[in-house]
């Protein structure tokens, strides 16, 4: 589109620049605070120039957490977060793609009933059913375990629906051709559907990785033991009381560390992610 309206161009740029500042400035402040000493962060106003404590702060939190708040090492929190953020997308993809395969390619009694049952669970995310789910997990003795952290978040109507929609765009003749070629249903699934679903799986992985990494409420309830803290919960536990008692430089360093992996996943998988959302290999 070619337009020559200088005022409009200026105005739209102004809006965009404001937007970027609104998002980027807090990130910058976080970074600056994470490089200063505790005393520097307490100055009013805080300096907006990066300090020289970066290495010290980061190695402090990675090794031993904060001194006033939680003393759990952030490195083990990052591992916990990583386990959670990987288990959720992998589990979700595995379960959803198989359910979608069943719903699209097999005729069994009450097929549509089961599809709608799955679909209706969209209305029941973890936050809504958190008390009964907590009770179940607690009774099963799964508090402070990786299974307790991830299993309740794995069942997913969204992903099932996404794969179902994708499978429905694959021409029926492809399944028929595979049948004539002698492929069993599972063989067709492995040899044809899985390779065709690669981009969809990649897109789902990115979305679900971030979903798993950023989980707050659920791990807050389940992970009561320091060794099971995720990075997001770790930040919460480092904040103990009045403003001056918190080591903001260390908390901000943890925040930066917690932000990096999702950003990395998005950047590294960006090509696949976009492909999965806009095109299919057919």
């Amino acid at each position: 589109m070619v337009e020559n309206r200088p005022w409009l161009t200026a105005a739209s740029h102004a809006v965009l620049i404001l937007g970027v500042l609104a998002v980027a400035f807090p990130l910058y402040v976080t970074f600056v605070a994470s490089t200063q000493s505790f005393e520097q962060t307490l100055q009013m106003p805080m300096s907006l120039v990066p300090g020289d404590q970066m290495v010290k702060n980061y190695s402090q939190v990675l090794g031993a957490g904060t001194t006033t708040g939680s003393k759990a090492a952030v490195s083990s929190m990052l591992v916990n977060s990583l386990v959670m953020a990987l288990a959720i997308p992998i589990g979700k993809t595995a379960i959803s793609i198989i359910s979608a395969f069943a719903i699209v390619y097999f005729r069994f009694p009450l097929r549509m009933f089961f599809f709608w049952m799955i679909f209706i669970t969209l209305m029941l995310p973890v936050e809504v059913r958190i008390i009964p789910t907590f009770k179940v997990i607690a009774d099963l003795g799964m508090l402070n375990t990786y299974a307790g952290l991830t299993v309740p978040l794995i069942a997913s109507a969204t992903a099932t629906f996404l794969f179902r929609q994708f499978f429905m765009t694959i021409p029926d003749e492809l399944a028929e051709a595979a049948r004539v070629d002698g492929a069993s249903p599972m063989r067709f699934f492995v040899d044809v559907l899985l390779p065709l679903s690669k981009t969809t799986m990649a897109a789902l992985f990115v979305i679900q990785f971030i979903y798993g990494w950023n989980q707050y409420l659920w791990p807050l309830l389940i992970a009561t033991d320091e060794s099971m803290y995720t990075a997001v919960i770790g930040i919460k536990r480092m904040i103990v009381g009045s403003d001056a008692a918190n080591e903001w430089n260390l908390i901000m360093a943890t925040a930066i560390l917690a932000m990096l992996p999702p950003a990395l996943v998005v950047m590294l998988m960006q090509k696949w992610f976009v492909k999965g959302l806009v095109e299919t290999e057919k």
Partner: protein
Amino acid sequence: MAQISFRDVRKTYGTLQVIHGVSTEVADGEFVVIVGPSGCGKSTLLRMVAGLETITGGEIAIGDRVVNQLEPKDRDIAMVFQNYALYPHMSVYGNMAYGLKIRGLAKSDIDARVKRAAEILELGAFLERRPRQLSGGQRQRVAMGRAIVREPAAFLFDEPLSNLDAKLRVQMRAELQALHRRLGTTSLYVTHDQVEAMTLAHRMIVMNAGRAEQIGAPLEVYATPATTFVAGFIGSPPMNLIPQRRGERDVLLGVRPEHLEPCAAGDAMLTVDIDLVEPLGSDTLVYGHLAAANGSGVRVAVRLHQSVDARTGHLAVRYDPSKAHHFDPQSGQRIAT
């Protein structure tokens, strides 16, 4: 190599019957075309042979085995689909080799078969390409290659040329004929295009509303259509059907457009009021309706071997009575003369 037998084959969906009992034999090595308008059940019939649709009644046998209860893979057939149904993520080689791999053939054997099929179909240069990097005609050939490598008892074709443009269709039609001459495999071919049916078939099955209206060699079907439906479906423009009284009974007189010849007004058997003239170069099509004198304003077409200047006016025509057909107006059945 095998013959295919249909014995009173029926298909119903719930209470809706779509195939009303088809019986015929396809001889070993024969090329039989099932032709009919859309919705006549021709694809369903083919898919019943393939095993992609269940058989509600009757029997289908391939060779001497009744295949009603067999899975597609156990029927020893290969199918070419209208949209080719190539595996998009596999190379041309992979597409052709997939069925053989599943059947557990040795790698060297698979390789030899794929190479030979590629050579027959001139696909040698494309073996490493993906289907989406190929043109329509090349994809069509890969689909055929996938069928050939299996060396099945029969080929089943489901409108394989209808996704191609007109010029390519003519070329692929010739290639199909050459391929069948070379391999001699029993083939069942479904199409809605009567030209494809006429040119490819040893015998054709003309279907209408789930019934086989006529089964016979193309020229025989053309020369002696069994019903008014066949008369109208085979041949373009279709046969003219003119209500007449013949002695005691009403009949439909059938005359093909090319069997009407212009003549002097005095000798005219029919007089046509011209509505439209289509010059085709080699010949000219004249569309019009019968003048009130010989009937009823029925629309007729005439194929002339000379050009006509007139855009309107009258055209006096006659025909050789031995080339005329008669049908019963109620049942549509041919009346033997």
